[in-house]
Protein backbone atom coordinates (compact mmCIF):
# COMPACT_ATOMS: atom_id res chain seq x y z
CA UNK A 1 0.00 0.00 0.00
CA UNK A 2 2.98 2.32 0.47
CA UNK A 3 4.68 3.35 -2.71
CA UNK A 4 7.70 5.17 -4.02
CA UNK A 5 10.49 3.49 -2.16
CA UNK A 6 9.04 2.85 1.24
CA UNK A 7 11.36 1.04 3.59
CA UNK A 8 10.40 -1.61 6.08
CA UNK A 9 13.02 -0.50 8.61
CA UNK A 10 12.10 0.36 12.17
CA UNK A 11 12.57 4.10 11.85
CA UNK A 12 10.50 4.20 8.66
CA UNK A 13 7.67 2.33 10.32
CA UNK A 14 7.83 4.69 13.29
CA UNK A 15 7.62 7.68 10.97
CA UNK A 16 4.68 6.12 9.19
CA UNK A 17 2.94 5.30 12.45
CA UNK A 18 3.43 8.81 13.82
CA UNK A 19 2.27 10.36 10.57
CA UNK A 20 -0.86 8.19 10.46
CA UNK A 21 -1.59 8.96 14.12
CA UNK A 22 -1.43 12.70 13.40
CA UNK A 23 -3.54 12.18 10.28
CA UNK A 24 -6.24 10.37 12.25
CA UNK A 25 -6.31 13.05 14.96
CA UNK A 26 -6.65 15.84 12.40
CA UNK A 27 -9.31 13.82 10.56
CA UNK A 28 -11.25 13.41 13.79
CA UNK A 29 -11.19 17.17 14.36
CA UNK A 30 -12.65 17.66 10.89
CA UNK A 31 -15.18 14.90 11.58
CA UNK A 32 -16.41 16.54 14.79
CA UNK A 33 -16.98 19.74 12.86
CA UNK A 34 -18.55 17.78 10.00
CA UNK A 35 -20.98 16.09 12.35
CA UNK A 36 -22.18 19.46 13.60
CA UNK A 37 -22.68 20.85 10.13
CA UNK A 38 -24.13 17.60 8.80
CA UNK A 39 -26.83 17.81 11.45
CA UNK A 40 -27.50 21.42 10.55
CA UNK A 41 -27.64 20.51 6.86
CA UNK A 42 -30.12 17.73 7.57
CA UNK A 43 -32.30 20.07 9.57
CA UNK A 44 -32.13 22.80 6.90
CA UNK A 45 -32.98 20.26 4.21
CA UNK A 46 -36.02 19.06 6.14
CA UNK A 47 -37.22 22.62 6.64
CA UNK A 48 -36.81 23.19 2.89
CA UNK A 49 -39.10 20.24 2.26
CA UNK A 50 -36.59 17.46 1.61
CA UNK A 51 -37.55 13.95 2.62
CA UNK A 52 -35.06 11.74 4.46
CA UNK A 53 -34.19 9.91 1.23
CA UNK A 54 -33.75 13.13 -0.75
CA UNK A 55 -31.49 14.80 1.83
CA UNK A 56 -29.39 11.68 2.34
CA UNK A 57 -29.09 10.91 -1.38
CA UNK A 58 -27.59 14.36 -1.87
CA UNK A 59 -24.97 13.60 0.77
CA UNK A 60 -24.18 10.30 -0.94
CA UNK A 61 -24.12 11.42 -4.58
CA UNK A 62 -22.86 15.01 -4.31
CA UNK A 63 -20.72 14.57 -1.22
CA UNK A 64 -19.89 18.28 -1.02
CA UNK A 65 -21.30 20.31 1.85
CA UNK A 66 -21.11 23.81 0.37
CA UNK A 67 -22.96 22.82 -2.79
CA UNK A 68 -25.56 20.94 -0.76
CA UNK A 69 -26.24 23.90 1.52
CA UNK A 70 -26.56 26.11 -1.56
CA UNK A 71 -28.99 23.65 -3.16
CA UNK A 72 -31.15 23.57 -0.05
CA UNK A 73 -31.37 27.36 -0.08
CA UNK A 74 -32.23 27.42 -3.78
CA UNK A 75 -34.86 24.70 -3.44
CA UNK A 76 -36.41 26.66 -0.58
CA UNK A 77 -36.51 29.66 -2.94
CA UNK A 78 -38.13 27.53 -5.66
CA UNK A 79 -35.14 27.90 -8.01
CA UNK A 80 -35.02 25.80 -11.16
CA UNK A 81 -32.86 22.70 -11.40
CA UNK A 82 -30.59 24.08 -14.16
CA UNK A 83 -29.51 26.96 -11.95
CA UNK A 84 -28.85 24.57 -9.05
CA UNK A 85 -26.78 22.25 -11.23
CA UNK A 86 -24.84 25.19 -12.67
CA UNK A 87 -24.08 26.58 -9.21
CA UNK A 88 -23.00 23.12 -8.07
CA UNK A 89 -20.52 22.91 -10.94
CA UNK A 90 -19.20 26.37 -10.10
CA UNK A 91 -18.81 25.61 -6.40
CA UNK A 92 -17.17 22.25 -7.01
CA UNK A 93 -14.81 23.29 -9.80
CA UNK A 94 -12.05 23.60 -7.21
CA UNK A 95 -11.96 19.80 -6.99
CA UNK A 96 -10.24 19.84 -10.37
CA UNK A 97 -7.23 21.44 -8.68
CA UNK A 98 -7.27 18.90 -5.85
CA UNK A 99 -7.39 16.04 -8.28
CA UNK A 100 -4.61 17.51 -10.43
CA UNK A 101 -2.37 18.05 -7.41
CA UNK A 102 -2.94 14.51 -6.13
CA UNK A 103 -2.70 12.82 -9.54
CA UNK A 104 1.09 12.35 -9.44
CA UNK A 105 0.84 10.71 -6.02
CA UNK A 106 -1.96 8.33 -7.02
CA UNK A 107 -0.76 7.50 -10.52
CA UNK A 108 0.26 3.96 -9.55
CA UNK A 109 -3.17 2.90 -8.34
CA UNK A 110 -5.62 0.89 -10.42
CA UNK A 111 -8.24 2.73 -12.47
CA UNK A 112 -11.00 1.30 -10.33
CA UNK A 113 -9.37 2.48 -7.12
CA UNK A 114 -8.71 5.94 -8.55
CA UNK A 115 -12.35 6.11 -9.62
CA UNK A 116 -13.42 5.34 -6.06
CA UNK A 117 -10.86 7.75 -4.60
CA UNK A 118 -12.24 10.51 -6.82
CA UNK A 119 -15.74 10.24 -5.39
CA UNK A 120 -14.54 10.78 -1.81
CA UNK A 121 -12.13 13.60 -2.75
CA UNK A 122 -13.28 16.50 -0.60
CA UNK A 123 -11.59 19.62 0.75
CA UNK A 124 -10.66 17.74 3.89
CA UNK A 125 -9.46 14.55 2.22
CA UNK A 126 -7.32 16.56 -0.18
CA UNK A 127 -5.72 18.70 2.52
CA UNK A 128 -5.05 15.83 4.90
CA UNK A 129 -3.74 13.37 2.34
CA UNK A 130 -1.52 15.85 0.49
CA UNK A 131 0.08 17.02 3.75
CA UNK A 132 0.45 13.36 4.79
CA UNK A 133 2.10 12.34 1.50
CA UNK A 134 4.46 15.31 1.57
CA UNK A 135 5.42 14.60 5.17
CA UNK A 136 6.27 11.01 4.28
CA UNK A 137 7.75 11.86 0.91
CA UNK A 138 5.72 9.09 -0.67
CA UNK A 139 2.18 7.89 -1.27
CA UNK A 140 0.37 6.15 1.57
CA UNK A 141 -2.92 4.87 0.23
CA UNK A 142 -4.01 3.69 3.68
CA UNK A 143 -3.62 7.28 4.83
CA UNK A 144 -5.82 8.51 1.98
CA UNK A 145 -8.59 6.08 2.88
CA UNK A 146 -8.26 6.86 6.58
CA UNK A 147 -8.77 10.56 5.89
CA UNK A 148 -11.62 9.95 3.46
CA UNK A 149 -13.27 7.36 5.68
CA UNK A 150 -13.16 9.27 8.94
CA UNK A 151 -14.37 12.51 7.38
CA UNK A 152 -16.63 11.15 4.70
CA UNK A 153 -18.49 8.18 6.07
CA UNK A 154 -20.17 10.17 8.81
CA UNK A 155 -21.58 12.77 6.38
CA UNK A 156 -24.58 10.83 4.99
CA UNK A 157 -25.27 9.35 8.42
CA UNK A 158 -25.37 12.65 10.26
CA UNK A 159 -27.42 14.11 7.42
CA UNK A 160 -30.07 11.50 8.13
CA UNK A 161 -29.88 12.18 11.87
CA UNK A 162 -30.19 15.91 11.15
CA UNK A 163 -33.38 15.35 9.14
CA UNK A 164 -34.86 13.27 11.92
CA UNK A 165 -33.65 15.09 15.02
CA UNK A 166 -31.67 18.16 13.94
CA UNK A 167 -33.73 20.58 15.98
CA UNK A 168 -32.32 19.02 19.15
CA UNK A 169 -28.70 20.04 18.55
CA UNK A 170 -27.13 23.43 19.27
CA UNK A 171 -25.77 25.62 16.49
CA UNK A 172 -22.20 24.38 15.80
CA UNK A 173 -21.06 27.98 15.31
CA UNK A 174 -21.90 28.67 18.96
CA UNK A 175 -19.38 25.96 19.90
CA UNK A 176 -16.72 27.48 17.64
CA UNK A 177 -16.82 24.49 15.27
CA UNK A 178 -17.08 26.71 12.21
CA UNK A 179 -13.46 27.73 12.71
CA UNK A 180 -12.21 24.13 12.38
CA UNK A 181 -12.23 24.30 8.60
CA UNK A 182 -10.25 27.54 8.06
CA UNK A 183 -7.89 26.80 10.96
CA UNK A 184 -7.11 23.32 9.70
CA UNK A 185 -6.71 24.44 6.09
CA UNK A 186 -4.32 27.22 7.11
CA UNK A 187 -2.42 24.86 9.38
CA UNK A 188 -2.10 22.18 6.71
CA UNK A 189 -0.91 24.84 4.26
CA UNK A 190 1.84 25.66 6.74
CA UNK A 191 2.91 22.02 6.96
CA UNK A 192 3.38 21.74 3.20
CA UNK A 193 4.81 25.22 2.61
CA UNK A 194 8.41 24.07 2.93
CA UNK A 195 10.19 26.63 0.76
CA UNK A 196 9.97 30.15 -0.62
CA UNK A 197 7.87 29.21 -3.68
CA UNK A 198 5.31 27.36 -1.52
CA UNK A 199 5.10 30.20 1.00
CA UNK A 200 4.70 32.72 -1.82
CA UNK A 201 1.97 30.60 -3.39
CA UNK A 202 0.15 30.30 -0.05
CA UNK A 203 0.31 34.03 0.70
CA UNK A 204 -0.81 34.87 -2.82
CA UNK A 205 -3.62 32.32 -2.61
CA UNK A 206 -4.93 33.84 0.62
CA UNK A 207 -4.65 37.38 -0.74
CA UNK A 208 -6.43 36.50 -3.96
CA UNK A 209 -9.20 34.71 -2.06
CA UNK A 210 -9.87 37.77 0.11
CA UNK A 211 -9.54 40.49 -2.54
CA UNK A 212 -11.36 38.42 -5.13
CA UNK A 213 -13.99 37.46 -2.60
CA UNK A 214 -14.85 41.10 -1.99
CA UNK A 215 -15.10 41.76 -5.73
CA UNK A 216 -16.72 38.61 -7.16
CA UNK A 217 -17.55 36.42 -4.16
CA UNK A 218 -15.60 33.73 -2.31
CA UNK A 219 -16.64 30.73 -4.42
CA UNK A 220 -14.98 32.11 -7.54
CA UNK A 221 -12.08 33.76 -5.75
CA UNK A 222 -10.99 30.55 -4.01
CA UNK A 223 -10.72 28.80 -7.35
CA UNK A 224 -8.90 31.83 -8.76
CA UNK A 225 -6.49 31.75 -5.83
CA UNK A 226 -5.77 28.07 -6.40
CA UNK A 227 -5.23 28.62 -10.12
CA UNK A 228 -3.22 31.85 -10.13
CA UNK A 229 -1.23 31.78 -6.90
CA UNK A 230 1.03 28.89 -8.03
CA UNK A 231 2.22 31.18 -10.82
CA UNK A 232 3.33 33.66 -8.17
CA UNK A 233 5.11 30.80 -6.42
CA UNK A 234 6.94 29.88 -9.61
CA UNK A 235 8.33 33.43 -9.76
CA UNK A 236 10.02 32.80 -6.41
CA UNK A 237 11.91 29.73 -7.56
CA UNK A 238 15.61 30.37 -7.89
CA UNK A 239 17.12 29.54 -11.28
CA UNK A 240 17.72 25.83 -11.52
CA UNK A 241 16.28 25.24 -8.05
CA UNK A 242 12.73 23.99 -8.25
CA UNK A 243 10.66 23.84 -5.10
CA UNK A 244 11.04 20.71 -3.03
Amino acid sequence: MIEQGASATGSSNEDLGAARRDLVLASLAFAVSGVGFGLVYGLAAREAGFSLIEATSMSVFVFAGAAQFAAVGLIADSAGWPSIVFLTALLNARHLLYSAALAPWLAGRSRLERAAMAHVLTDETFALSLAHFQRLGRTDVVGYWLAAGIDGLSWPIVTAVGVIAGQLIPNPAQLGLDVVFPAAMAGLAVTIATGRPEVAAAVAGAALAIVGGIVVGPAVSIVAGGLLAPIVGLLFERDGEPSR
Partner: protein
Amino acid sequence: MSVDLVPLALLMGAVTYPFRALPLFAPTKDRLPRLVQRYLRLVGPAILAALAAGNAAFIEDAAGRNVFHLGIEWIAVVLAVVLIGWRGNVFVGIVAAVVLVAVGRGTIGA
Protein backbone atom coordinates in the same frame (compact mmCIF):
# COMPACT_ATOMS: atom_id res chain seq x y z
CA MET B 1 -41.69 9.35 1.28
CA SER B 2 -40.81 11.70 -1.58
CA VAL B 3 -37.94 10.86 -3.94
CA ASP B 4 -38.57 13.72 -6.38
CA LEU B 5 -35.24 15.39 -5.60
CA VAL B 6 -33.12 12.25 -5.99
CA PRO B 7 -32.62 12.86 -9.74
CA LEU B 8 -31.42 16.38 -8.87
CA ALA B 9 -28.91 14.86 -6.44
CA LEU B 10 -27.72 12.55 -9.22
CA LEU B 11 -27.35 15.48 -11.62
CA MET B 12 -25.38 17.46 -9.03
CA GLY B 13 -23.16 14.44 -8.47
CA ALA B 14 -22.74 14.00 -12.23
CA VAL B 15 -21.41 17.53 -12.69
CA THR B 16 -19.15 17.23 -9.65
CA TYR B 17 -17.54 13.87 -10.35
CA PRO B 18 -15.60 14.87 -13.51
CA PHE B 19 -13.85 17.65 -11.58
CA ARG B 20 -12.77 15.08 -9.03
CA ALA B 21 -11.82 12.32 -11.42
CA LEU B 22 -10.51 13.61 -14.74
CA PRO B 23 -7.01 14.66 -13.64
CA LEU B 24 -6.55 11.34 -11.87
CA PHE B 25 -6.83 9.66 -15.28
CA ALA B 26 -4.66 12.16 -17.12
CA PRO B 27 -1.04 11.41 -18.15
CA THR B 28 1.17 10.39 -15.24
CA LYS B 29 3.73 12.60 -13.57
CA ASP B 30 6.68 11.48 -15.69
CA ARG B 31 4.89 12.43 -18.89
CA LEU B 32 3.95 15.93 -17.77
CA PRO B 33 6.19 18.89 -18.69
CA ARG B 34 8.48 19.91 -15.84
CA LEU B 35 6.87 23.34 -15.56
CA VAL B 36 3.45 21.73 -15.10
CA GLN B 37 4.86 19.43 -12.41
CA ARG B 38 6.28 22.42 -10.54
CA TYR B 39 2.99 24.30 -10.94
CA LEU B 40 0.97 21.36 -9.58
CA ARG B 41 3.30 21.12 -6.60
CA LEU B 42 2.36 24.69 -5.68
CA VAL B 43 -1.39 24.18 -6.09
CA GLY B 44 -1.61 22.53 -2.66
CA PRO B 45 -0.39 25.43 -0.49
CA ALA B 46 -2.16 27.93 -2.75
CA ILE B 47 -5.63 26.37 -2.61
CA LEU B 48 -5.40 25.48 1.09
CA ALA B 49 -4.48 29.06 1.98
CA ALA B 50 -7.24 30.35 -0.30
CA LEU B 51 -9.78 28.07 1.36
CA ALA B 52 -8.65 29.18 4.82
CA ALA B 53 -8.77 32.87 3.95
CA GLY B 54 -12.05 32.61 2.06
CA ASN B 55 -13.75 30.80 4.92
CA ALA B 56 -12.38 33.02 7.70
CA ALA B 57 -12.94 36.32 5.92
CA PHE B 58 -16.54 35.98 4.78
CA ILE B 59 -19.78 35.24 6.57
CA GLU B 60 -23.35 35.03 5.37
CA ASP B 61 -25.55 37.99 6.25
CA ALA B 62 -29.25 37.73 7.04
CA ALA B 63 -30.05 37.80 3.33
CA GLY B 64 -27.73 34.87 2.66
CA ARG B 65 -25.07 36.98 0.90
CA ASN B 66 -21.37 36.46 1.61
CA VAL B 67 -19.93 39.62 3.16
CA PHE B 68 -16.42 40.50 4.29
CA HIS B 69 -16.04 40.11 8.04
CA LEU B 70 -13.29 40.91 10.53
CA GLY B 71 -13.76 38.83 13.66
CA ILE B 72 -12.22 36.53 16.19
CA GLU B 73 -12.00 33.83 13.51
CA TRP B 74 -8.98 35.63 12.05
CA ILE B 75 -7.16 35.54 15.38
CA ALA B 76 -8.09 31.89 15.80
CA VAL B 77 -6.71 30.99 12.37
CA VAL B 78 -3.47 32.86 13.08
CA LEU B 79 -3.20 31.09 16.43
CA ALA B 80 -3.68 27.74 14.71
CA VAL B 81 -1.05 28.57 12.10
CA VAL B 82 1.47 29.59 14.78
CA LEU B 83 0.81 26.50 16.90
CA ILE B 84 0.88 24.10 13.97
CA GLY B 85 4.03 25.72 12.60
CA TRP B 86 5.66 25.54 16.02
CA ARG B 87 4.50 22.14 17.29
CA GLY B 88 3.86 20.43 13.96
CA ASN B 89 0.58 19.10 15.35
CA VAL B 90 -2.56 20.00 13.41
CA PHE B 91 -4.94 18.69 16.06
CA VAL B 92 -3.53 20.95 18.77
CA GLY B 93 -3.84 23.98 16.51
CA ILE B 94 -7.45 23.19 15.65
CA VAL B 95 -8.46 22.63 19.28
CA ALA B 96 -6.83 25.90 20.34
CA ALA B 97 -8.67 27.78 17.57
CA VAL B 98 -12.03 26.26 18.52
CA VAL B 99 -11.55 27.03 22.21
CA LEU B 100 -10.56 30.63 21.45
CA VAL B 101 -13.62 31.20 19.25
CA ALA B 102 -16.02 29.45 21.63
CA VAL B 103 -14.72 31.46 24.59
CA GLY B 104 -14.63 34.67 22.57
CA ARG B 105 -18.20 34.30 21.37
CA GLY B 106 -19.32 33.30 24.82
CA THR B 107 -17.73 36.28 26.52
CA ILE B 108 -17.61 39.13 24.03
CA GLY B 109 -19.98 37.96 21.33
CA ALA B 110 -17.27 38.36 18.66
